[in-house]
């Protein structure tokens, strides 16, 4: 019977492909959120696998905070062009210009929270009925309680105490007009699984994930990259360090880690030995113990 056994990565892959196909079958106008980070890259890879040899039957959607690492945007454009995939880009700057949100001020200002408004507006304007995201349950405590198929009311809100039970592989995507779903196909993957899978499948990722020299500065124990969009406090000084990023998000709140990992194998071994979570490098989660739960309830990714 041994020959009918598959390893954990192939089992996770099969589960995610099932979920992505389920979205294509159950919804009329789904999109897949794409940030250019590794989680959305593998989710996109899984979507291509799910429908081969046909093209992915839905569009990608990027909520652009304007505070990006240029490498991420270059990578996004290259990947979409190479695979002939349609991507919808919505800008947080537009929401600010329209007066829908007010930009945070101060040294720790971030557009991370503002993204929620841009995302919900995009969902409403384009009549999107399901947005797939690359959220993983191992990332954060509130995410650990998330369903694969997560129902959102007409305000885009998540009600964690009133979630639909989710059994076997039977996913209930039924909703009323104006409501939508968030679906998380890689819910059961861990950071380690993602890296192993990138290695196993030889998936291309932005070079920010590999060790490189960069001008950085320390703030609240996080190494932030020097960037035009982060004002420096008096006394903060940049210096050149050898770093890489474990996650790639908004440049204002994504911390770098000192690392000499140049290859996927070295990254896998580094991840195996590391003693902090990857979101430990995210300043947005450090705001309070329930920071993620609060943002998710409002309709965050």
């Amino acid at each position, binding site marked *: 019977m041994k020959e009918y056994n598959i390893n954990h990565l192939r089992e996770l892959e099969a589960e995610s492909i099932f979920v992505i196909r389920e979205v294509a079958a159950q919804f009329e106008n789904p999109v897949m959120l794409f940030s250019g980070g590794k989680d959305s890259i593998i989710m996109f890879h899984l979507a291509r696998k799910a429908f081969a040899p046909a093209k992915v039957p839905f569009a990608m959607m990027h909520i652009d905070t304007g505070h990006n690492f240029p490498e991420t945007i270059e990578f996004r454009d290259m990947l979409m062009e190479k695979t002939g995939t349609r991507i919808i880009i919505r800008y947080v700057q537009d929401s600010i210009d329209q007066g829908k949100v007010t930009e945070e001020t101060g040294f720790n200002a971030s557009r991370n929270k503002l993204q929620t408004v841009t995302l919900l507006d995009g969902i409403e304007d384009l009549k999107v009925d399901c947005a797939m995201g690359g959220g993983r349950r191992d990332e954060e*405590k509130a995410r650990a309680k998330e369903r694969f198929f997560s129902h959102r009311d007409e305000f885009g809100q998540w009600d964690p105490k009133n979630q639909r039970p989710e059994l076997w592989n039977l996913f*209930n995507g039924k909703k009323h007009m104006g409501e939508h779903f968030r679906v998380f196909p890689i819910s059961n993957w861990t950071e380690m699984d993602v890296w192993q899978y990138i290695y196993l499948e030889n998936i291309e990722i932005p070079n920010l994930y590999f060790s490189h020299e960069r001008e950085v500065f320390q703030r609240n124990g996080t190494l932030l990259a020097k960037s035009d969009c982060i004002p420096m406090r008096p006394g903060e000084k940049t210096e050149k360090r050898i770093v890489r990023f474990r996650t790639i998000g908004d440049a204002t709140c994504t911390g770098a880690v000192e690392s000499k990992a140049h290859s996927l194998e070295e990254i896998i071994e580094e991840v195996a030995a590391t003693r902090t979570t990857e979101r430990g490098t995210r300043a947005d989660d450090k705001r309070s113990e329930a920071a993620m739960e609060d943002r998710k309830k409002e309709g965050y990714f």
Partner: protein
Amino acid sequence: MSEKTAGYLDMELLRFTTAGSVDDGKSTLIGRLLYDSKAIFEDQMEAIEISSKKRGDEEVDLALLTDGLRAEREQGITIDVAYRYFATPKRKFIIADTPGHIQYTRNMVTGASTANAALILVDARNGVIEQTLRHSYIANLLQIPHLIVCINKMDLVDYSQETYDKIKADYQKNIVDKLNIKDVCFIPISAKLGDNVVDASTKMDWYSGTPLLDLLENIKIVDDRNHGDSRLPVQYVIRPQSDEFHDYRGYAGRVASGVFHPGDKVRVLPSGIETTIEAIDSFTGEQEVAFTPQSVTLRLSDNIDISRGDMIVDANNVPNVGQEFEAMLCWMNERAMMPRGKYTIKHTTNETRCMIRDVKFKVNVDTLDEVADDKLVGLNDIACVSFKAAKPLFFDSYKKNRLTGSFILIDEGTNETVAAGMIL
């Protein structure tokens, strides 16, 4: 590739669920497994140390690791199923941590539906209680293949072998024999102090078995899957609108059970037409075999009208095809079941309407008695119910096949998932 990297790529996945009543120490046990297997990171530990101090606790409360929602931390209870992950060099584990409160039984059923194994927690001071029976009954009803009874808080009964033996005998007599459970084992542990969780206890020399983690790493799970009855519920039809693949029609789905090879004779339900598998496609080319739980795309030799909800099966081994069936039902919604009510039924990738015909009996989960004259099925009730569907379904008994034998009911007004069913 180094040997270390190669090792990470070849692990098996084991899903398990935990059940116990309030204060049996489930969250602590999970915290312990994560902590001792080094799956807890420094920043997570730091965060719960701060929270424990804030609440005035003397020791770090490992339960805080899994209680993710604000209300849970405030009330010190677990509200919803939380999924947790850890890995050892042998296996990757997914834990469905389910709350013990009676009102949240639906969450236990949810966690149990995909589990390979269940940990049932018993407080050594209280022994087998009503909830132990309830949890064991649900684990068995959902056909979790392996049960592990963890007799916890051994430190509070002086690590007494007599207490352990008594609880074990009690569980054997009142639960195993009654429910006809096939695979069960017992471990005396202290989740709080770590005895027999990851490392063998030094205080219970009388226990000759292995610690819990060792057991979880070595339970044989591949044979639990049904490799005999080939079934592929069609999930999506792939039709590339391109010149290169002009006439391509692929039937995508996850193999629910059994094995498929190119050349195999198959039957398509509901049409009953027989054909052969031409190829099994994947992203990187054709593959020689497809088996559960793989997600694949089948191409067939003949051009047949097939759509989502149809099922491709072994030509010589077909499931039941019919509109009438009986099932064990767990009711999961505050609104009670409507007698002779109509609901949407989701079964494999198929969906139709169904009508409740009759409640044959309800199960008193505290005594396991079958109550025949009570027809009111409400939240957390388990009942044997007969159904009639609006069109034929293709099903096996749940005992034989967890994926073609299970279904959910959806309320047509609220769209909520109101019940989980297991076909008899």
